[in-house]
């Protein structure tokens, strides 16, 4: 079978192809019209699902919860409803204890139209991710959409147990345009694609230890990696003091190494 590009798929196509066939049961589906109250006020067209599909499904036979962000709708921006759907999914995971929570992340971060409501939504998602991890339920992020995973969602992804990326995928805090706008083109030329990918791209993130698995831009490859990530003995990695200290040491090392390289 030929590869299906993960980057080229919509959020719903990814869900249909990545999960066990026909197993996805959606909560708050499009026909329920749980939409952004803010976009309508700004006279911007809404999406029936506010750019995210959530629900339960099976993955390699495991009962899991899953969320998929649609990067084409407002760059996957997290608005109030979008974030609440994600937080609600994670809180339900605390109650129902699925084998894992899978996050198909593709987002530019907070949806600026919704300002503080979006920022609060992202912080609630972060808190919920950490609660789910603390309960011993693994949370795994998949990043391979052409919009990357930036801003608040970049932090959310790094709050999860594991990250699977493709070379096409990008993961960072401030996006290229944001850095260029705030620090000037001399600091960071957002049109320099090679620069963008060698600072935020999947290969760079894998080499730096920020992502756990690098896969081809292929839905089946993401599926296999996701199954492997939730099946392993140490799938759940609750945030404990040792883990935090290890992370801090790794970041300090990186800062020194980067300073030497520069």
């Amino acid at each position, binding site marked *: 079978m030929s590869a299906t590009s993960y980057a080229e798929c*919509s959020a*719903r196509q990814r869900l249909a192809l990545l999960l066990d066939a026909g197993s996805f049961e959606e909560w708050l*589906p*499009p*026909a329920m019209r749980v939409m952004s109250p803010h976009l309508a006020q700004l*006279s*911007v*067209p*809404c*999406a*029936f*699902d506010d750019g995210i599909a959530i629900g339960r499904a099976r993955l390699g036979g495991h009962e899991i919860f899953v969320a998929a962000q*649609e990067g*084409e*709708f407002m760059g996957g921006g997290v608005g109030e409803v979008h974030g609440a759907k994600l937080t609600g999914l994670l809180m339900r995971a605390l109650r129902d204890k699925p084998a894992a929570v899978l996050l198909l992340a593709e987002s530019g971060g907070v949806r600026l139209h919704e300002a503080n409501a979006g920022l609060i939504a992202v912080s609630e998602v972060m808190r919920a991710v950490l609660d789910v991890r603390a309960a011993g339920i693994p949370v795994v992020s998949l990043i391979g959409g052409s919009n990357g995973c930036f801003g608040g969602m970049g932090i959310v992804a790094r709050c999860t147990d594991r990250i699977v990326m493709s070379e096409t995928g990008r993961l960072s805090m401030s996006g290229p345009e944001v850095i260029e706008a705030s620090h000037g083109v001399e600091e960071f030329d957002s049109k320099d694609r090679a620069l963008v990918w060698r600072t935020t791209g999947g290969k760079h993130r894998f080499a730096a230890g920020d992502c756990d698995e690098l896969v081809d831009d292929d839905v089946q490859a993401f599926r296999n990696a996701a199954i492997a990530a939730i099946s392993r003995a140490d799938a759940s990695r609750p945030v404990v003091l040792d883990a935090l200290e290890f992370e801090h040491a790794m970041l300090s090392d990186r800062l020194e190494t980067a300073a030497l390289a520069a």
Partner: protein
Amino acid sequence: METLRYELRGSRPVKRVDPVLVGVVASGNLEVLIEAGVPGLCVFQIETSARGFGTIWEAVIRDFHERHDFAGTRVSIHDMGATPAVVSLRLEQAASSLAGDLR
């Protein structure tokens, strides 16, 4: 943003209960949601970011309705400046997803 609504009489009832969604609200694109609606009617509700294109919308919608003649159907559209050709393709995609498992 502009909201448009067309209620057209149809003679081919759609049996499906599960709603069908195709497309994404993105620049030059749109999403189409087809659900069960009022018997005998095909109701189109459109929210579009582009103002003042009502005449063209009506032509595209009537063209689609002439081909399918759906009844008992509600078609909801969120549009972000798609061209008429793209709108027609999305509508056809939604209609064929309906046809796939229900009619």
